[in-house]
């Protein structure tokens, strides 16, 4: 068995992401097999993973409306008001940070010691080009009536 197949990222992300959205956004997230392209107006968080035996990244892609709703809940924005772009970006970064942080902990517990970067947030529709050797997995969830995606790039060596 290779290192790559020994670590089932999907088994973890399928648990981690719903737990994060349930706890932080008070919203149920369910895995969906609908892998159609996401909304064009979206906000993405990105976190790098670096270690002795694994490198990679975690991306969280959120439709802009979802990110605003999540920011409204997490920051307790008053009814009738909208979170600012800066607040929405920060909430997206933090949600990405929590998902990546939990994944990092699971990787470390499995013997793949690594560290994570601080989050970057990007607005707009784009696709991520995988570096050579990376295994890329996309996980789509339905949450607050919208599709969101967690994209994980990992290279075990």
């Amino acid at each position, binding site marked *: 068995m290779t290192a790559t197949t020994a670590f089932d990222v999907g088994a973890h992300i399928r648990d981690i992401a719903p737990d994060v959205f349930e706890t932080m956004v008070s919203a149920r997230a369910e895995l969906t097999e609908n892998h159609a392209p996401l909304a064009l107006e979206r906000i993405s968080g990105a976190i790098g993973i670096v270690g002795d035996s694994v490198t990679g990244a975690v991306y969280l892609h959120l439709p802009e409306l979802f990110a605003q709703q999540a920011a409204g809940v*997490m920051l307790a924005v008053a009814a009738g008001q909208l979170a600012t772009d800066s*607040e929405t970006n920060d*909430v997206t970064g933090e949600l990405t*940070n929590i*998902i990546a*942080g939990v994944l990092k902990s699971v990787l*470390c517990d499995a013997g793949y010691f690594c560290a*994570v970067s601080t989050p970057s947030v990007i607005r707009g529709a784009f696709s991520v080009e995988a570096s050579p050797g990376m295994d890329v997995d996309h996980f789509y969830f339905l949450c607050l009536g919208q599709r969101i995606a967690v994209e994980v790039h990992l290279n075990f060596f």
Partner: protein
Amino acid sequence: MKILSVDDSKTIRMIVKRTFAPFDCTVLEACNGEEGLATALAEKPDLIVLDITMPVMDGVTMLGKLKENPEIKSIPVIMLTAESGRENVAYIAKLGVRDYLVKPFKDDQLIEKVKRVIALQPKAEAVAA
């Protein structure tokens, strides 16, 4: 009572602030370990809620410097982190933190952890209401 929230995420600092709004305490904010140390020295908070991964100076480095400084080394620290791996938890326990809370977290979990360390009292107006 003064609680210092040290986190690069404004979201987490705002959650901490909102969580303790009903209590008779002031929440101070710092967005990295360097600012956190400066604020701890200037304000002498009763408790620090500290993130680990931050730019400029991370939480582990800040904790080490805090424990080296006689003026502030006795301030209790609760780590608030998404990094809950066994090695990580064992490491931060050795650094002398009072407790840790793993993200994602609910407000009442944070209140419970903090109440174990400092005597939080409801705000007078909250009691009156």
